[in-house]
């Protein structure tokens, strides 16, 4: 735990600080992008208004399939948010230094997805006005209460893991703020909490971050295990599985890695951070994606082979539907394009270069979303007792336009949060890069 020793590598420090602070601030591109997002969000909010007015009948959900796209999207969001824990928590605690430039991006993703995940759940509620009831009348036996607890805890921990290491950067940043951004300098001043780079302050910061990292590992495990229990506690074919916790958790790491790679690529090229986020990082993230995908594939094999071997009646119907029935195209598309092919391709070094790994990550992320849909919907379409005497459209689930718009709205919200955080504050920890000038500059030399 090396402490910052001021003025050791003054030149590098200057360069890094100005490079990283350069994209900070609101420019015309930011306004245009946010304007676009806001417009889309307004349309989605209107969709939500119609849902509030007419009830959940505006969705494709009915009595048999009562959970659909919203819940699938919720699971996806929780999954994507876990990357914050994997990068900072697991890899950070293990002492990997290369994650330092991308750790904050991972935390931004974690904060954005975890924050909106809560809203996604609210959009699925028939009576969102009664949300306070969860706190007033909460039953500790309900996995929903556990989920509310751990999602809140995880969001707070992620926010702290984002904010605490930001303190030195805020102090650095406020002195370098562009003239036109006086208000931002003021925000920096307030948020930096009198940070003056004193060794005592660094001491406390390192201690706090370490405790947070230790805390976030079990919390992140809990958040996604509990999310998997929302399904696994129900006696239904396709959900009635004991490996749902680790199955979801490893799937989350796959989705999170892909999301992080996409964000890394975007910030690297748009913020001109090639010196700090290097092809080396993409290579390593590619390898991490391979590792997580292999573990996920292993759980997939367990999840489908074991019931497929026994073919208990209800399981048989469910698997039949996935393998060769109505959901076969989506299922095989997800498994092959979103998991197996990416896994094989990423084994080759050229495929782990920034652009190929970006394209592969898009497939993985889309596959991850579709996989959640496949976990939620087909099981609900096949209850134990036959579906009869209901309108035809109740038999199968078809998401409506309104429902899709509300889901798109949640993704727009995530993008907005990421944009705002990444535009107002440095996306790479300046002070941590200063701590290790040699290593980072070596990497920079390699690439240039």
């Amino acid at each position, binding site marked *: 735990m090396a402490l910052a020793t001021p003025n050791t590598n003054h030149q590098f420090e200057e360069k890094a600080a100005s490079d990283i602070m350069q994209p900070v601030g609101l420019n015309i591109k930011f306004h245009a992008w946010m304007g676009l997002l806001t417009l889309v969000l307004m349309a989605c909010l209107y969709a939500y208004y119609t849902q509030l007015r007419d009830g959940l009948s505006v969705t494709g959900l009915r009595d048999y399939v009562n959970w659909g796209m919203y819940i699938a999207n919720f699971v996806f969001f929780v999954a994507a948010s876990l990357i914050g824990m994997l990068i900072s928590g697991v890899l950070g605690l293990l002492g990997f230094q290369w994650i330092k430039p991308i750790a904050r991006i991972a935390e931004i993703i974690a904060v954005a997805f975890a924050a909106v995940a809560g809203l996604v759940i609210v959009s699925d509620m028939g009576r969102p006005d009664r949300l306070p009831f969860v706190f007033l009348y909460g039953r*500790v036996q309900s996995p929903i209460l556990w989920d509310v607890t751990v999602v809140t805890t995880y969001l707070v921990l992620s926010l702290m893991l984002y904010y605490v290491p930001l303190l030195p950067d805020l102090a650095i940043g406020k002195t370098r703020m562009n003239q036109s951004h006086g208000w931002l300098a003021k925000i920096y001043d307030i948020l930096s*909490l*009198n940070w*003056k780079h004193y060794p005592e302050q660094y001491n406390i910061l390192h201690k706090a971050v370490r405790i947070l990292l230790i*805390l976030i590992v079990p919390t992140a495990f809990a958040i996604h295990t509990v999310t998997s229990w929302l399904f696994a506690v129900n006696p239904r074919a396709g959900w009635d599985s004991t490996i749902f916790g680790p199955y979801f958790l490893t799937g989350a790491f796959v989705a999170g890695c892909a999301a992080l790679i996409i964000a890394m690529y975007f910030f690297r090229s748009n913020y001109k951070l090639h010196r700090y986020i290097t092809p080396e990082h993409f290579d390593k993230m590619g390898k991490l994606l391979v590792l997580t995908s292999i573990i996920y594939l292993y759980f997939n094999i367990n999840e489908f082979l074991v019931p497929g071997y026994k073919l208990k009646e209800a399981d048989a119907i469910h698997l039949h539907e996935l393998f060769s029935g109505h959901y076969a195209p989506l299922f095989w598309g997800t498994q092959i394009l979103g998991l197996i092919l990416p896994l094989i391709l990423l084994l080759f070094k050229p495929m782990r270069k920034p652009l190929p790994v970006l394209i592969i990550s898009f497939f993985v992320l889309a596959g991850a979303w579709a996989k959640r849909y496949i976990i939620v919907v087909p099981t609900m379409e096949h209850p134990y007792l036959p579906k009869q005497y209901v309108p035809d459209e109740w038999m199968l689930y078809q998401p409506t336009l309104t429902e899709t718009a509300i889901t798109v709205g949640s993704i727009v919200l995530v993008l907005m949060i990421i944009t705002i955080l990444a535009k107002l504050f440095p996306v790479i920890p300046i002070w941590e890069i200063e701590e290790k000038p040699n290593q980072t500059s070596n990497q920079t030399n390699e690439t240039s």
Partner: protein
Amino acid sequence: MIRFFIIILSSLLIFSQGRAQSDQWPVPEDEAERLSPFAFNDSTREAGQELYDLNCASCHGDPGEGNYANLDPLPADPVSPTIQNNSDGALYHKITEGRGQMPAFQNVLTPEERWFVVSYLRSYNDGYVQEVAKEVIKKGYKGLIRIMMDYDAGQNRMISKITGIQDNEEEPISNARVRLTAKRYFGDLTLDGEKETDSIGMVAFTIPEDLPGDSTGNVHFRIALTEQELYGSAKKDTVLKAGSPVMAPPLNKERAMWNTVWKAPVWLLISYLGAVLLIWGTIFFIILQIREIFLIGKRKES
């Protein structure tokens, strides 16, 4: 194709056999000769129509419409000869006893109500001329019925003596049908079947050993004469400690996953609250640390 044909043929056969059976619904002679104790008129027909619509129409359909349910044997339309060729007593008997798919209405409709239904059915028969029972009045017991009950705890038997007082003279009621029932929440449970009094008006019922009573074993018993047209609604009630005490606890007494939060399993309460307190306690500690960072900066500055 041939197989299909055979299936149709054989099912037709079965069907016609079913029809054949339906034509034979034997009614004991004395039952068939039974006559209504009152004359049918517009008000009895009206009452009968109401009862018919409630209890019979869902299978027999609207009279004359032929919209009866497609069952086996077919429930006939009330206008059809299948029904109208029955005597009044036969109709009354069939309504009372039921058969196969047709439920018995003896516990649903009172004897009077059953005659109302017959009255309504006859309104679809133009050639019908009613014969009203005359001897019913003669047959009916004119005196006062007295029921005495005695509980034999040793043998768990209920013994009853039924006497009648007529012209200041007491006489045993023999050969009367008697029923012992235990009161249950939605109806009376018949115990040990229906019995007949002997020559001295005595009858004995064995109470089942495992008959549940209330928490102290009390059971509300009733002895009643079933031939209401003879004896009216003669009955006698008593509450006795003749049942086994039932002290079943409330179903939501135990701690369980499904119970209220106050009755959650203890291990769950401890682990949930423990984990929440631990993590949030630590979060609070870190907030204090962040405050410390702020204070250090302030202190050094001044």
